[in-house]
């Protein structure tokens, strides 16, 4: 049970980070609002840029 919980937490962290990195590569400037490609997406992501680095 303990091991399952640890694996779950690590998998969730890795999955979320993978999604974040993929979004960062696609939208490095807007972070996901679509402003840099015009394709649209999540408006929330525009804040990512200020937090990065």
């Amino acid at each position, binding site marked *: 049970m*303990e*091991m399952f*919980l*640890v694996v779950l*937490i*690590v998998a969730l*962290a*890795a999955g*979320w*980070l993978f999604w*974040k*990195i993929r979004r*960062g*590569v696609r939208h*490095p*400037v*807007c972070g996901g*609002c679509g*402003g*840099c*490609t*015009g394709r649209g997406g999540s408006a929330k992501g*525009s*804040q990512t*840029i*200020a*937090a*990065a*680095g």
Partner: protein
Amino acid sequence: METALMPAEDANPGSPTLALTGNPNSGKTTLFNALTGARQHVGNYPGVTVETKEGVCNHNGRQVRVVDLPGTYSLTAYSMEEVVTRDFLIRRRPDVVVDVVDASNLERNLYLTVQLMEMGVPLVLCLNMVDAARKRGIEVDAERLSARLGAEVIPTVARTGKGKEALLDAALRKAREGAGGPPLVISYGNDIDEAIAAMEALISSRAFLAGSGPARWIALKYLEEDGRILAEGDAADPALSASLKEEVRKVSVHLARTLDTEPEALISDQRYGFIHALLREGVVRREHDQNRLYVSDRIDRFLTHRLFGPLVMLAVVMALYRFMFTYSARPVAWMEGIFSWLGRLASAHLPDGVLRSLVISGLIDGVGGVMSFVPLILLMFFGIAILEDSGYLARVAYMLDRVFRIFGLHGNSVISYIVAGGIAGGCAVPGVLAARTLRSPRERLATLLTAPFMNCGAKLPVFALLIAAFFAEHREEVMFTITLIAWTGALLAARLFRSTVIRGPATPFVMELPPYRVPTLRGLLIHTWERTWQYIKKAGTVILAIAIILWAMMTFPALSDSQVGRFESERAEILASATTEKKAELEAVDRAQAEAGLRNSLAGRIGVALERVTRWAGFDWRTNVALLGGFAAKEVVVSTLGTAYSLGEVNPEQGGGLAERLAANPGWNRVVAWSMIVFTIFYAPCFVAVVCIAREAGSWKWGAFSVLFNTAVAFGLAVAVYQVGTLLGAG
């Protein structure tokens, strides 16, 4: 790259169109009459011309159509004159625009010039009434003004016709070029620049109102709430227009809260700041008006003085660091106390096992290490907010501009460097994006590649940790030295790039000098909190996720049963023996087992493999793992060291702060600390910054270059520091 307004395709190639613009009463109509021989009514009061008038003149056997546009102060559609002038420039696209300015009132007259240049029209400046200006003791250096403005400037006296031949020569030369230069880009301060960048991206991506002007200019008109452009935008693409208005609303609310102003007022301030700076350094000499200096000018005479200015600047930076370290020491200790208490709490309530290890070594010691520096970061941001909101940061940029030219960079590069962490605490990503304001692609690339050398807010905890551990007696002096090392390295690298891979000429530049303001407490608090919150949010999201993954990499694979069995049998032997030092011996076995476990893990194996090379710089395998984690985000260096030294401890929840652990570790000393500081300053930018560099430079090649070049330079310098330091016995 912005496109300038091109002449209309239906323009008659044999008879170029010359449009006269200028402020009311600048002598446009007089010049029109001088050029065309017409007898239009001229009055010595503003606003004589309310409609366009056309005439023809012959110059060197060539026919030129001359159009006299109504006098205006700006190009925002407030009055009929402005609408008529702007519509003519946009719809009819003359081959050349001659902007007539009154030499006696240059500062006011150039406001329109700046707007014309932002539109990217092909421009020649007619410096009119130079005789009247001279009588008033005002001498304008046309050549210097031309060089700084990037447009030809021809002195004239329209009343007598003096200079009109030279003006027509210059105008026809410009008309032959076929287009204006790239539109002028003025920085309107962080808040507005960010909004413009976002809006520009939207406008460009959909070719929104493409026929009306460059994307940046359209964005500016939205920020100025220009009625006509808004109406045109609503008709052309209502959804996009609404998105742009939303951006404007957001920045307006932000500016109202922080600076108690609105975008339009700030834009106007910055334009005047630009003009003000343009006219410095001998462009305008006044014989009689020395006492009419503004308050900002009086302050600037001292603060931007060639000798005192840089001294004041260095003193301000030093004072900022002293302020940051002095007042953050106690709150940082409180924060460490809170995380230490959390560790003990988790230890008391969680059973021994991997989950407890994850919570204590991964989360609390990892993320806690980063979060402990929140008070320090907060004070740093508060200090920077004071410098920024008061207008002093613009003066710092102005003074550094002279230095930057020596190293092949552009004045706007200063803004990039400062945003990226020139005074420690910025961020490389907006720093890289700020390089967009540079017109020359070569200067832009040199800036993109060197701005990440600045000390961003993420590197700050690494420095603060090492300073607390090894240089507690000289905190601000060491931080100041770190800043100087970063600047020197960045500038030398820029010089190297500009002399080799990105060689090319320098472009003229004028730095904006907005008037000084007394910062409002509310504005300072909002700016400070916004940035600090981003730091906290990042520690609680990205850093947390990376800390969990790195903990897993530092924990698995675990020791095999036979390896664990060996330690168990050692313990059994100690317990069975008659020795009196049982406790100490058992602790030594526990420590050896913890270290063996860490070395056996995936991250440990990578760290150990790298140790063969990195030991030249004094880095052990734990440091290697931390620095590798720093590729993701620099804060991870601190969180990973926290986890690595926690996992290596027998009772991680009972250990002191990370700084104390490092100071007590025999593998660390002052030379290793300096080596690590130098490596941290220069090595590869974080992942997000690399993506931005690649995108902004237009090629992943440059992203890869920044990773490889920076890491190679950082390692070479770290090895030099460690080897020389060790030889001198400085450890």
